[in-house]
């Protein structure tokens, strides 16, 4: 069989045009998410068979209103379209537009068309034209735009085949520009630009001038030429404004000829919904209710699958141990790798449920209303209305939350959001809170209806948000970061969510978590296992040492084994670490065993419970909280008092609420801010806060 030819096809379009629906429709499950070199913007690609001899390698570029970028995501569009040496440089560009906002969508189309690449316009949601009273003269639109145009409905799979068959002939498409920017703006300037870059389309050279900071791939000679031409920045800015006005003139002229809208038919669901959803009272009530519903569901719905995963991995570990030949490799798999993978998988239910809701809220257009409602409040704390979603996501996991902060335009607002997200109570803190609350807070009812333990848990959530808000205020006052925040958001029309899009979002985000954070959690679990199961001479001689002690002779075999593993732990590498830091953690009310749990949970907080289970040599039968709890409750200090008394418990709860114990988050902050400065600030700042607060709490309470 002859090998099919491959063409690179880029999907470009405004947000909310259904670009992703088209991508899902074209590629189905043949898609993968990767990274662009050097930055963490997700790169979505997929393949689509056009015909026997032609396969399209489709790249779904981030949604943008213009080729001139205003956020990190949008710079990708510019770079992909202009850098001819890049592997993803497209042979064909599909600009996805939406039938109702065709005018604004055509601005982006006209910019891309002028780059001189083979470009096709796909007008989406064409199935709703009749309902909305819209008609388009397709033949004339093609002629005016000097391009192929196709009407599609991505959700209903209409027009997809036509689009594919048109792409077959992309080499014959007209690539002339639509706008003659030279004559309309400043002919002298553009004449000089043309002589400087004779081989480029004029618009491409113009983007070199206006978006200079993004073109690392230019030769140094080109860079010098560009610098000379852009000496007067104000003039350049004026030219850009003129260009935009001119483009809209062309578009208006074209649309007047080909686009008709019967205003009487247009219904006004939007304004009625807007009036309720952004109402000064109902708006907040509805938002609060939705948030409550999301939180409830995350914990209610996720608890069963999480328990099942827990049991499954515990059994798998047990099974491996019993059925593989014993030795260090089996131990590594059974005690290091399998629990490590389990520690990652256990978070999937919560993350999937969270993104189910977030995807639905975004698909329907409600998220923009939340941004609108919350912007003023968030600005008081140096953040933006767009920070609300990342902060909410932080209650599942800080890693996807920090990635969700990318669409915040102002750098200072985005930075503050990233820095305070780790204070929100992520799901990894839950198991720690659960066991400590069960230990120190009595199971009793308050005012007849409230459960005191539940109230404590809620208080910890509120504490997390309060810490986030307070530190945001502080950062807002102290951070000297240049801030040019231009807040413009589109308020899209309301839509029913597409199940397919929601499903793909969940899959994509969950994958991102597993492969981003998961790798680190797994690696560290293995390291911790190694440190806990190896040690110097005393560790190796543990068995003989314990057996030679006279008081141990009468013990049963089980009791003896427990004693041996306790002794081993004390003399393992991690035991030495725990005893080394004991003087430092004593003021907080902890001993070296809790110290081990603290060190272990530096990688990921939830390791705390498992570490304590090991430390107190409890058979962790599927992490059944009862037994670990009983053992913890029985633990006494040197004076014979309860180790986990109220003071130590509260001190631990506060420490876990404030401390930055998550390597995955630190790594993602480093990548997103492109500097070690900010993750180190988080680590040190939150660490000091946690330490000081815990010491104070312990001192007062004991």
């Amino acid at each position, binding site marked *: 069989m002859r090998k099919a030819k491959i063409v690179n096809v880029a999907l470009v379009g405004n947000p909310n045009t259904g670009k992703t629906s088209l991508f899902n429709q074209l590629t189905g499950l043949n898609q993968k998410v990767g990274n662009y070199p050097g930055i963490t913007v997700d790169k979505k690609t997929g393949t689509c068979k056009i015909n026997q001899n032609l396969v399209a390698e489709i790249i779904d570029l981030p949604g943008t209103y213009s080729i001139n970028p205003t956020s990190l995501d949008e710079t990708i569009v510019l770079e992909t379209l202009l850098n001819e040496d890049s592997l993803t440089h497209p042979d064909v560009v599909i600009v996805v537009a939406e039938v109702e906002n065709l005018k604004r969508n055509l601005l982006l189309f006209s910019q891309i068309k002028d780059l001189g690449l083979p470009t096709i316009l796909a007008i989406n949601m064409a199935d709703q034209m009749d309902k909305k009273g819209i008609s388009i003269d397709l033949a004339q639109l093609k002629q005016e735009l000097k391009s192929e145009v196709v009407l599609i409905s991505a959700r209903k799979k209409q027009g997809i085949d036509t689009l594919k068959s048109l792409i077959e002939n992309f080499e014959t498409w007209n690539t002339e520009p639509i706008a003659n920017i030279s004559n309309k703006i400043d002919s002298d300037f553009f004449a000089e630009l043309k002589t400087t870059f004779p081989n480029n389309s004029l618009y491409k050279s113009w983007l070199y001038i206006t978006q200079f900071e993004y073109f690392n791939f230019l030769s140094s000679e080109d860079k010098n030429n560009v610098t000379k031409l852009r000496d007067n920045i104000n003039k350049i*800015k004026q030219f850009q404004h003129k260009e935009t006005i001119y483009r809209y003139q062309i578009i208006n002229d074209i649309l007047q000829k080909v686009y008709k809208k019967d205003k009487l038919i247009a219904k006004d669901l939007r304004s009625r919904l807007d009036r309720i959803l952004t109402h000064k009272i109902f708006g907040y009530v509805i938002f609060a209710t939705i948030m409550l519903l999301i939180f409830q569901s995350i914990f209610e719905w996720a608890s069963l699958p999480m328990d099942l995963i827990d049991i499954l991995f515990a059994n798998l570990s047990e099974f491996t141990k019993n059925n593989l030949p014993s030795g260090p490799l089996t131990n590594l798999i059974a005690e290091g790798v399998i629990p490590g993978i389990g520690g990652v998988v256990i978070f999937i239910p919560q993350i999937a449920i969270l993104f189910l809701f977030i995807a639905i809220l975004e698909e329907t257009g409600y998220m923009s209303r939340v941004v609108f409602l919350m*912007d003023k409040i968030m600005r008081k704390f140096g953040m933006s209305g767009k920070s609300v979603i990342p902060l909410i996501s932080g209650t599942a996991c800080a890693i996807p939350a920090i990635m969700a902060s990318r669409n915040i335009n102002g750098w200072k607002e985005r930075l503050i959001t990233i820095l305070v997200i780790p204070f929100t109570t992520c799901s990894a803190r839950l198991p720690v809170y659960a066991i400590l609350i069960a230990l120190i807070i009595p199971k009793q009812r308050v005012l007849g209806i409230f459960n005191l333990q539940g109230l404590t848990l809620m208080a910890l959530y509120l504490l997390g948000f309060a810490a986030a808000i307070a530190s945001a205020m502080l950062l807002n006052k102290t951070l000297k970061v240049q801030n040019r925040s231009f807040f*413009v958001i589109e308020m899209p029309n309301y839509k029913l969510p597409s199940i397919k899009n929601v499903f793909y979002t969940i899959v994509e985000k969950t994958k991102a978590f597993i492969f981003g954070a998961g790798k680190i959690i797994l690696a560290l679990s293995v390291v911790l296992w190694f440190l806990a199961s190896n040690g110097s001479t005393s560790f190796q001689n543990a068995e003989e040492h314990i057996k030679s002690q006279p008081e141990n002779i009468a013990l049963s075999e089980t009791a003896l084994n427990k004693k041996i593993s306790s002794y081993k732990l004390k003399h393992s590498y991690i035991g030495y670490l725990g005893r080394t830091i004991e003087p430092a953690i004593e003021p907080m009310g902890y001993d070296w065993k809790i110290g081990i749990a603290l060190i272990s949970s530096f990688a990921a907080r939830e390791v705390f419970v498992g570490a304590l289970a090991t430390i107190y040599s409890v058979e962790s039968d599927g992490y059944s909280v009862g037994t670990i709890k009983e053992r913890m409750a029985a633990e006494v200090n040197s004076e014979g008092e309860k180790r986990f008394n109220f003071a130590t418990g509260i001190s631990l709860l506060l420490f876990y609420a404030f401390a930055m114990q998550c390597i995955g988050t630190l790594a993602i902050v480093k990548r997103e801010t492109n500097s070690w400065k900010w993750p180190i600030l988080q680590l040190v700042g939150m660490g000091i806060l946690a330490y000081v607060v815990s010491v104070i709490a312990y001192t007062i309470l004991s």
Partner: protein
Amino acid sequence: MNNSIANLKVGEKGIIEEICTDIIPLNLLEMGCLPGQIVQLIQIAPLKDPLYIKVNGSHLAIRQDMAKQIKVTPL
């Protein structure tokens, strides 16, 4: 005359007069907010900021400080 989008009442319309190149970002123009266009103030957020406007077919939310920089002739 010191009329800007920020001075409009909810439901009122105006024609955009001029847009100051230094202050107003290009992306606002690109989203359709252009001189000569009719702008309607649709709603004001509960805490008086941001403003929800319709201009040139686009529904946008912008903050007070930017709205003040866009001069309009009320209709």
